[in-house]
């Protein structure tokens, strides 16, 4: 592999709701082609960090850089262009319930491209086929199962061939086999599309299987306490909190081996 190219850089990021600080002084870099895991216990601000990265919430302090461009300092127009290059899979899919799956995926394509209806239709079918939902174009989100909704949400997130794909708890609510298939799909998509992937999860199996970089948020000190490849973290970290988390609280740093 060639030298890593920084894709998203987070510098001195402090996140807060009003006066209530969620996390402070976050510093990490997500490289192009990474599968980056945001981990930490419940309530440590993982999803809030995701909202900062995708531009739904502005930082209280610090910067989020996309290929060197500060997301919040740049103009509205460039921010919109940046956001178009981002795909987000929300926790429960967040499909628009009044539209069919095909319409859900076609909406961003119709808004941002000059493609003909036939071309849009073909891209929609391709995206649905990619997530294993071929033939479900005419279904409404309420007519399919939760796992299918999640995959359809992924198809919509991929509609515009994004450079970065964000996943909020992709395996939550999925059976173990479906969760593993989704992990494989994420790997496959990273390889085929060359996209950078950011995953918020506390599913250990999936974290070790796909992640090659990570940040660990701690709810007590309200900052990051570790980072790097999850497997390396498990084997080498000296921090008892990290080890407890990565071993489901079953082991401490001393009895690792």
């Amino acid at each position, binding site marked *: 592999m060639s030298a890593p190219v920084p894709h998203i850089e987070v510098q001195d990021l402090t996140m807060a709701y009003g006066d209530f600080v969620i996390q402070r002084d976050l510093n990490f870099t997500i490289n192009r082609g990474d599968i980056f895991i945001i981990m930490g216990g419940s309530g440590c601000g993982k999803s809030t960090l995701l909202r900062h990265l995708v531009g739904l919430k502005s930082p209280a302090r610090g910067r989020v850089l996309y290929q060197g461009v500060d997301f919040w300092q740049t103009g509205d127009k460039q921010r919109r262009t940046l956001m178009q290059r981002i795909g987000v899979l929300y926790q429960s899919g967040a499909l628009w319930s009044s539209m069919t799956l095909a319409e859900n995926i076609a909406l961003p394509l119709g808004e941002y491209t000059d493609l003909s209806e036939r071309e849009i239709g073909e891209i929609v079918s391709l995206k649905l086929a*990619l997530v294993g939902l071929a*033939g479900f174009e005419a*279904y409404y989100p309420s007519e399919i199962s939760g796992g299918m909704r999640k995959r359809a949400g992924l198809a919509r997130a991929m509609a515009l061939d994004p450079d970065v794909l964000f996943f909020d708890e992709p395996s939550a609510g999925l059976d173990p086999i479906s969760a593993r298939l989704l992990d494989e799909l994420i790997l496959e998509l990273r390889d085929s599309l060359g996209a950078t992937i950011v995953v918020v999860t506390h599913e250990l199996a999936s974290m070790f299987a796909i992640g090659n970089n990570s940040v660990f948020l701690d709810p007590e000190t309200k900052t990051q306490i570790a980072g790097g490849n999850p497997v390396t973290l498990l084997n080498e970290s000296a921090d008892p909190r990290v080890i407890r988390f990565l071993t489901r609280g079953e082991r401490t740093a001393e009895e690792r081996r």
Partner: protein
Amino acid sequence: MPTDPEISSQAAAAELKIDDLQGPLIRFSGNWESSGRLPAVDALVRQFPDRAAGELRFDSSAIAAWDSLFVTWILRLTEALQTRGIGVAYDGLPEGVQGLIALARAVPERKGARRISETEGWLTRIGRRVQGLLDDTRRLLAFLGEVSLAFARMLTGRARFRRSDLALFIQQTGVDALPIVSLISVLVGLILAFIGALQLALFGAQVYIANLVGIAMVREMGAMMAAIIMAGRTGAAFSAQLGTMQVNEEIDAFKTLGIDPVEFLVLPRLLALTLMMPLLCIYADLLGIVGGMLVGIGLFDISPTQYIEQTVSAVTLTDIGVGMVKSVVFGLLIALAGCMKGIQCGRSASAVGEAATSAVVAAIVAIVVSDAIMTLIANALGV
């Protein structure tokens, strides 16, 4: 051979070479992203000789960039060639494209998943409508039955709902509605007085504005206007609240805990609105009369004492009673319509919107129809 005559070195191009020994080969060059124009598939397919000479191969070494549109282009080409019996080998494509094609084909289309939209005959459509109507009636009766049972349980003191909920709904449907009811009632009284006065002035009988406004407000408009405001304000709120609870599976949670949602959610709302409507009605009556008085005193030279005197002599207790009975019925109908549409709501955001809309429409229709019936009955009874 490029298919587009205006092709530049940057634009997407697909060059077909027919080699009798090695089979056909397509060489791609340029930028194959959705922002540009892609060569037409049909024209390319037509260039293939009738007799297939082996599989089609690709050479993508000169391709500058590609995205999903390129993949769909390849799939469309594959399909078109398959109908002519020509196979396709993907190994000359960029690795990512090969991966995506493999992924797209990994899960075969589930049999019977695709929907074929067929147009139905008029007889079928009429049949469906009638069946839908029957279903609606059945659901309405079932809901009324459940509410009646819950009400009976309440009378025997066995119904479970929280007193604090009831108090909250009484506040929401009573006190909180006062400002809007005040505004509308004053204006309605004003309008009634104005229209009436212009006609009565022809006979020099302006003083009868008081009779007209008094009787109209007390018997009819007070109850009616308060009801229509509450249908838009509270009926819609009830159905949206219950509909959202249905979407969030909160209603299912009540059921699995053995708590009857009709008892717990519908009953307090129903009681609150039915209790508050007559009070709102009296309040609306009063303010309507004040509105009429403003016009009478300000524009038609009637003294306040005269106006009040006239109103008191014109409006009887029976008139007030008729208005209050009506308002109780209206309150019941609004709450029933709102709660029923909410409880029977579908499980999506748009279903909640539909429920709220149809709750308001149903409530207003019910108000007007029941008002007509009650007016006829009052007329027949001579009250």
